[in-house]
């Protein structure tokens, strides 16, 4: 497949791996966080870890929209869907995310709630048009990548005068989460995770550009390399991070030049700005309540807000106390360090959100990497 295979080429990968091994200084350990679940998935699916020297280590970050969605918001969506007038539309990944008391959208659907999997926000608009007697609610989640399509759906609904369309808005933002991780944001009390550099988001950065990371790199003195989601992209970004560390630089560099510019996609940004404004604070699974980290509808568009239309309220919800999703999302723990991993919690019967989405650290490790555990032991010893 042209323009894809090139980025998965084994011989090119060997070359980059060799260069990483040559440049990484034996006397130190390089710990990098790949922020995005897309990168986590690529690393696991292509076995990138096998190409890295033992002293270059990747820590999985929280950039998986499904994983950071707190249980209380899942509960809210289920409560909304149980309203007999409501048709709740959601991306497929969300169906199995656990809510309180082992509930999920999938189970609610089996109990009779009208919940439909969609591939795009335009599917939701089509459903709302075709079924004017149903209250069609879109369970909107995701980082800056999925926010513009939601904004577009609102614009379209307005243009078409659709009165039976609303959204349950859970759109969150990347830079505040990156900062929170370094600041040691936590719902536990462990020390901040030691991270020396970030593999920065691919798709998110096509929208927001590389500029928003500049203050972050400067203030926190951490290098950020924006990278594509193909395995060779990630490998090259790791090499660029090793170089920055060796040279004592902390800059924003762009590996993903074929898609990302410094200023990003102005149209998409304008669409977001037109429809959404900052929430004061929003709860993230694993990171707790973060100020100015999520979006809500502007007052002019509050008619499209499902929370308002159906009077939905957040009820406090608690994860299973043994579930380590929080620490795993912060990079403080590895999936194997969770007692539930691979025993009570597997992709077939997920208890934590990180085991649900293929981009989640636990699901990626379980699905692709768990054969490597004897090797992980070896890395730990070196570190």
């Amino acid at each position, binding site marked *: *497949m042209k323009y*894809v295979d090139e980025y998965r*080429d084994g011989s090119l990968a060997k070359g980059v791996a060799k260069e990483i091994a040559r440049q990484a200084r034996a006397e130190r350990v390089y710990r990098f966080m790949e922020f995005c679940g897309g990168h986590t998935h690529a690393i696991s699916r292509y*076995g990138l870890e096998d190409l890295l020297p033992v002293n270059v280590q990747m820590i999985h970050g929280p950039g998986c929209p499904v994983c950071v969605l707190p249980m209380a918001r899942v509960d809210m969506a289920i409560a909304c869907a149980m309203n007999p007038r409501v048709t709740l539309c959601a991306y497929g990944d969300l*169906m199995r995310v656990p809510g309180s008391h082992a509930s999920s959208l999938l189970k609610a659907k089996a109990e009779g709630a009208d919940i439909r999997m969609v591939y795009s926000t335009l599917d939701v608009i089509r459903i709302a048009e075709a079924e004017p007697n149903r209250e069609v609610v879109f369970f909107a989640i995701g980082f800056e990548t999925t926010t513009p399509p939601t904004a577009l759906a609102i614009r379209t609904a307005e243009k078409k005068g659709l009165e039976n369309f609303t959204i349950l808005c859970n759109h969150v933002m990347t830079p505040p989460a990156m900062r929170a991780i370094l600041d040691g944001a936590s719902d536990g009390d462990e020390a901040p995770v030691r991270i020396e550099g970030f593999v920065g988001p691919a798709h998110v950065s096509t929208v927001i550009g590389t500029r928003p990371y500049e203050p972050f790199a400067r203030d926190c003195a951490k290098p950020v390399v924006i990278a594509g989601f193909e*395995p060779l992209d990630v490998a090259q970004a790791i090499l660029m991070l090793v170089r920055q560390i060796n040279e004592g630089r902390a800059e924003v560099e762009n590996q993903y030049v074929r898609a990302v510019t410094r200023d990003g996609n102005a149209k998409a940004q304008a669409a977001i700005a037109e429809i959404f404004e900052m929430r004061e604070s929003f709860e993230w699974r694993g990171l707790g309540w973060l100020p100015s980290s999520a979006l809500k509808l502007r007052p002019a568009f509050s008619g499209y807000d499902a929370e308002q239309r159906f009077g939905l309220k957040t009820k406090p919800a608690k994860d299973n106390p043994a579930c380590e999703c929080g620490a795993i999302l912060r990079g403080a723990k590895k999936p194997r360090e969770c007692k539930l991993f691979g025993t009570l919690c597997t*992709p077939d019967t997920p208890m934590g959100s990180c085991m649900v989405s293929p981009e989640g650290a636990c699901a990626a490790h379980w699905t*692709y990497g768990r*054969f490597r555990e004897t090797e992980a032991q070896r890395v730990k010893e070196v570190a």
Partner: protein
Amino acid sequence: MTLEKPVRRRLDFKNGRVDLSHGAGGRAMGQLIEDVFVAAFDNDWLRAGNDPSAFDVAAGRMVMTTDAYVVSPIFFPGGDIGSLAVNGTINDIAMAGARPLYLSASFVIEEGFPLADLRRIAASMGEAARGAGAPIIAGDTKVVERGKADKVFISTAGVGVAPPGLNLSSDAARPGDVVILSGTIGDHGVAVMSKRENLEFETEIRSDSAALHGLVAQMVATAGLSLRGMRDPTRGGLAATLNELAHQSRVGFSIQEAAIPVRAEVAAACEFLGLDPLNVANEGKLVAIVAPQGAQALLAAMRAHPLGAEAAIIGSAVEDDNRFVEMRTAFGGGRIVDWLAGEQLPRIC
């Protein structure tokens, strides 16, 4: 004195639809069976009109299997629910190294289903069954109210006979055994998905739906007892099949991504649908486990058959208490090939 016979109206295959009377056990049902199924399946057993059909038992090991088909859409590039049902049952029989002998078919039809579509499906089943030399000699028809089924569901069963002494089984793989795949993966799943509502995309990909008994006969003749087991990687794809073989045989597998044939169009479609071809369904492919000494001869025999022209050795069985299917990626790393969690897409077959 014989009364004048009432006029028997022919079924309207242009605009007619199945209604509840076609499943009610009366004359309407008799006519539907006669004009659609007996006409298409065309054999003496059905013409005799008995509920059970009798046949002589062949010498050898008898095998039996049954399947249900609910694929949506019912017509897709490269096949339809009818040929899929026949080929699928024949393939299940063939995986025991057996020759298919006789089939049965039951239909659950939704009220309002076009008679033309039903006839088209029956014709395609008759053709597939005749092609395999395995007539459909028993059947049943039920009609349910609109909305209680989706168009038509078909359940098929079949019996076959395996050569004496041949005992192929999924629990027979031993460390060192070679894994051969008969051709490209993912064609069926992608062909069906390409016609799915909400998902439609332009592609030339056709389902690989095919009856594999001919290929299997050639394999059994060549490999004989060095052939340990076979499996057709349908739902869940190659990944599920290898995991099932690993668990049943208590071994692991080590496979090479670069050795697995995938059509460029299928790879591209999977790419934008976010699927892994390893998890996508096939309906005309098989995985064979063979003792190392028989592998090259078997591969050559498979490649000599049109349905195995792209056959490839993709890996081997290894000792592994974890029963992992490990794959060396084309990128150069290692990964597990696991069962898919949850449902990739319902009603693929």
